[in-house]
């Protein structure tokens, strides 16, 4: 019942902003926007048995699009100034399984001054580049492999974030976060204090009128307890320290800074993960525990070119390196497989306007050690309501 009400409210709200902003009481309405998404996909391997061999399953929604027609997540975003000191923001995803998921729900300060901004609640972490970009604004339908393997697709914890922007012409931003440790690679614990913390630094600027760039370095530290997955009747769990470093960059080019006709975007990130602790193996017959140490890495590089108004083409390369996994305990599931996953993805998309996009995407996915998955999909992304601002 509650869910039904929620959906009705969402729909009503999505239609409302057409008349908003014209003064009167309506001027106080928050900005509301709704994203509609869906795919029609075909793949040579069954997405049901998708796994990234060589890596511990993250438990996130990392599989490729379901076969056949499927509805993507419908995203409802509501945001507004709360008062002169705070801004509020929420994105709820209505999943095709008829569940409501809070992707982000946070407040953000407007008046701290001296370049400081504090965020609190649930938010997409500032680590990496793509992590803060909402899924509907991605250049490919799904996340890069390192995001899938090391962050379960994306990292949105419950906690606080403090950012500081330097008073310089060069863009220099430093940030720190502390959180509950809800998403992978952390685990939620009933503990006073934080289960995960991160630091990040971003630099950015322009080269002439046509090129803009940003580069960053991030560090995430979590202390998961009994982080487990099950495979073939075996439960494998990890307790210890998980550390992740990400180096990222994005470069955007447009003639004279005008992206309307043509533009080009180059984006890449490198991940290094280090986990130390204890690994458990439980097959119900001879349970074992022992020391565990892993050093794993991955990267992706993608380029997107708008060759004429409305049309863009893109290519993405992903690669994961299983690295070293040292333990005397037997390994289970995909973690046991010696494999370096890789993937090549190509896409072409057409945008009717800023508010509509249709995409054709093809990928050769070697996430599994024993098979190449050839995936083809068509995706639509429509945006209704308030004209949202897009992150760089």
């Amino acid at each position: 019942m509650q869910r039904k009400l929620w959906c009705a409210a969402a729909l009503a709200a999505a239609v409302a902003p057409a008349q908003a902003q014209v003064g009167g009481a309506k001027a106080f309405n928050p900005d509301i926007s709704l994203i509609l998404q869906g795919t029609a996909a075909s793949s040579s391997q069954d997405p049901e048995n998708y796994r990234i061999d060589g890596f511990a399953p993250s438990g996130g929604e990392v599989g490729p699009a379901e076969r056949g027609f499927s509805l993507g997540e419908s995203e409802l975003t509501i945001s507004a100034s709360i008062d002169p000191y705070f801004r509020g923001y929420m994105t709820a995803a209505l999943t095709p399984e008829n569940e409501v998921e809070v992707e982000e729900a946070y407040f953000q300060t407007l008046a701290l001054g001296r370049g400081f901004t504090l965020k609190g609640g649930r938010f997409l972490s500032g680590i990496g580049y793509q992590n803060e970009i909402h899924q509907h604004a991605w250049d490919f339908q799904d996340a890069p492999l390192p995001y899938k393997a090391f962050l379960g697709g994306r990292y949105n914890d419950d906690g606080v974030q403090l950012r500081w922007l330097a008073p310089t012409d060069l863009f220099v931003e430093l940030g720190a976060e502390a959180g509950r440790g809800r998403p992978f690679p952390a685990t939620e614990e009933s503990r006073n204090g934080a289960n995960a913390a991160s630091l990040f630094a971003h630099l950015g600027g322009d080269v002439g009128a046509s090129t803009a760039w940003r580069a960053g370095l991030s560090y995430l530290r979590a202390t998961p307890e009994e982080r487990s997955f099950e495979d073939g009747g075996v439960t494998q769990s990890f307790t210890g320290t998980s550390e992740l470093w990400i180096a990222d960059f994005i470069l955007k080019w447009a003639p004279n800074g005008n992206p309307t006709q043509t533009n080009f975007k180059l984006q890449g990130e490198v991940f290094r993960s280090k986990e130390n602790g204890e690994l458990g193996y439980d097959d119900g017959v001879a349970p074992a525990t022992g020391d565990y140490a892993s050093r794993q890495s991955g990267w992706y590089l993608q380029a997107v070119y708008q060759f004429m108004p409305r049309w863009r083409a893109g290519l993405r390369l992903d690669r994961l390196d299983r690295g070293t996994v040292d333990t005397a305990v037997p390994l289970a599931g995909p973690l046991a497989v010696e494999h370096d996953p890789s993937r090549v993805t190509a896409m072409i998309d057409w945008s009717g306007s800023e508010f509509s996009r249709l995409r054709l995407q093809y990928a050769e996915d070697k996430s599994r050690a024993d098979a190449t998955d050839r995936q083809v999909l068509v995706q639509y992304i429509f945006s209704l309501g308030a004209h949202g601002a897009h992150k760089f």
Partner: protein
Amino acid sequence: MRFLIVLLLAAAPLRALAALDIFACTPEWGALARELGGERASVYTATNALQDPHHVEARPSLIARARRADLVVCTGAELEVGWLPLVLTQSGNPKIQLGQRGYFEAASAAKLIEVPQRVDRAMGDVHASGNPHLHLDPRNIARVAKALAQRMSVLDAKDASYYLEREVEFQKRWQAVTLRWEREAEPLAGMPIVVYHKDLSYFIAWLGLREVGTLEPKPGLPPSAAHLAELLAGLKQSPAKAVVRSAYSDPRAADWLAHEARLPAVVVPFTVGGTEGAKDLYGLFEDTIVRLKAAAR
């Protein structure tokens, strides 16, 4: 860490000893802020004349510049919705947030035209508050100048008389040239033109030109072959004098139509810096009128 410190030092600007640090969204407001602020204001202009003002990105460099600004001068009327809100919230600068004294919208001082009866995206990228390209009517520039000088004198109270005196001087000169332009542009009255986007509406309304079509089928949508063919057929029935586009827009469709309809294709600066002649606000209007008169003959 040492690397970071070196970078920070390298990036530390050699700032002029100006009292007001102004962040202007577009070149016309940057130029106006310079006219009024003189040496007391240091003005940064976020975009150039060859950038489509509807499609600006919240680049890191803009966020960095907004961090230090005392005053943001933008158009408003939703022209900057796609990027300015992000720049403001990420700047960590409380002075320039929406509703603060350091946030100035030109649209608040001008009268907007083409306010739609109802808004629906099926009509294209229409703005609920009206046409935002208000700076191409010099009388709007005068109105905005008055409000902006007032705002500057509030923000930098010890130099208040400096800004207000400069504004009086500016208004005197501006009124004189406006009258001269109106005289000189008499041949433009009633001139039928095809425009690319409805970004010249204020200029057209001011001098009494006649817009007989737009290359965009709907605001914000790129010209389509079908729409261009329809325009061309219409032009055969009732011819126009020129196909006019702003410097930032794509030349291809305008040139094609001009060629097919045997009309001159005219590029107007749209804002300061759009053409050689549009070096400042005076040049912007001067050059626009000269270019259109050449086609009116």
